[in-house]
């Protein structure tokens, strides 16, 4: 990973000022709850930080081009990988003390990885039958499409293939609103359905650090006294996802997706490409 040369802090002071502004505004707004009868939608400060960042982004708001350069934007993008580490370290540190709880729940932790397979089983038909996608559907629905998945599709089908277009599409959506989505949905689902919060914490491990963390954060607003356990389970689940997803994708998900896709295409009366 190439980083800007030393003197980073001086060169990027406009960027850091913008970042600080986003954080300050977001925390001043704080956590907002919207009560919609059966469900409660919790808006975490991270959402407002994202919105503030969007507004300050020169690619979104042209006048900002005078304050932030393209180099600043590129630096911010590259630094996300570093910015996410404090949270990953924090969550992983919670694992040690909670090891006995994790051990107790380990069958659930391991079996829920197959949930990642379920995604494809439901989303692929929708992509093909409803949206009439062709092979893009395979790339778009096989997994949550983060860097690992992206790399796999590109190397298996080629960078200019329909599958690559599919995975890139979902990847971009994930980049733009994946984290935000995971900061809203788990809390929402759990406010409607009363389920074991440990199960929800495990389900947070989707293979993307920031999505997992946002998910865990949204759950801790529901059960603040269990913050450490939620964090520990989410972090473990994410780690396991990272380790097992590639195997599952190569040996189960993609072969299954290919066969499934062929059947769906025949159902549509089309010869599968």
């Amino acid at each position, binding site marked *: *990973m190439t*980083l800007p040369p*030393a003197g*980073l802090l001086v060169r990027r002071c406009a960027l850091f000022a913008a*970042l600080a502004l986003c*954080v300050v505004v*977001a*925390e001043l707004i*704080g956590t907002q709850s919207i009560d919609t009868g059966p469900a409660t939608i919790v808006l975490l*400060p991270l959402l407002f930080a*994202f919105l503030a*960042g969007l507004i300050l982004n020169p690619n*979104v708001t042209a006048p900002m081009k005078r304050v*932030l350069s393209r180099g600043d934007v590129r630096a*911010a993008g590259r630094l*996300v*990988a570093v*910015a996410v*580490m*404090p949270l*990953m*370290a*924090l969550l*992983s*540190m919670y694992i*040690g003390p909670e*090891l006995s709880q994790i051990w107790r729940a380990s*069958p*659930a932790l391991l*079996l*829920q990885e197959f*949930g*990642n397979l*379920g995604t494809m089983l439901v*989303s692929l038909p929708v*992509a093909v039958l409803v949206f009439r996608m062709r092979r893009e559907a395979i790339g*778009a*629905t096989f997994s949550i499409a983060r860097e690992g998945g992206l790399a796999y599709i590109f190397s298996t089908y080629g960078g200019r293939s329909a599958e690559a277009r599919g995975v890139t*599409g*979902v990847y*971009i959506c*994930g980049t733009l*609103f994946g*984290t935000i989505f*995971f900061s809203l949905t788990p809390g929402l*689902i759990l406010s409607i359905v009363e*389920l*074991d919060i440990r*199960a*929800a914490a*495990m*389900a*947070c*491990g*989707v293979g993307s650090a*920031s*999505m997992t963390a946002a998910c865990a954060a949204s759950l801790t607003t529901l059960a603040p006294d269990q*913050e450490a356990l939620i*964090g520990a389970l989410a972090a473990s689940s994410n780690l396991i996802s*990272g380790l097992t997803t590639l195997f599952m994708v190569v040996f189960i998900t993609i072969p299954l997706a290919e066969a499934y896709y062929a059947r769906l295409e025949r159902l549509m009366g089309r010869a599968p490409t």
Partner: protein
Amino acid sequence: MNRARPSLKAQARRLSRIAAALLAALALAWLGHLIAGAAGPLETAGGLAVLFGVIMTGYAAGALAGRLPDIFWISMVAMAAGLPVLPGSEFLLARIEPLSITATMTPILAFAALGITGKDLRLFRGAGPAFIVISLLVFTGTFLASLTIASFVLFLLDAFSA
């Protein structure tokens, strides 16, 4: 990753740049914690200092041992740091206790939003609205499917161990 091992000097340079970036990210988290009222300035700084140590140790381990992604090394070091059997873990865990997941999360999204490039936006517009729906379906589906399985298994575990 298959690449020639960079020189020690290059590694050190890379680590020092990462350290600078990390300090900036932690400073933002410190600011966020203060405004959120999550904890006092000293407690937050103490916790974040521990995270700095853990993370840089992880990066260093990755630089020396290589082959696996940084996040793996950092997670391993962090897990080890919190293990009750290892000495010092109580001290470290006590230091991070005042930190909040939510407040530590906030700066990440600021980086992410400010890092969105023109190319990202063009790709997004090119992909079309279908992808938005499919993405939401994929994200929801993956969470719900895992949630269902985990709930079910936990229920069985509790029922049989009670």
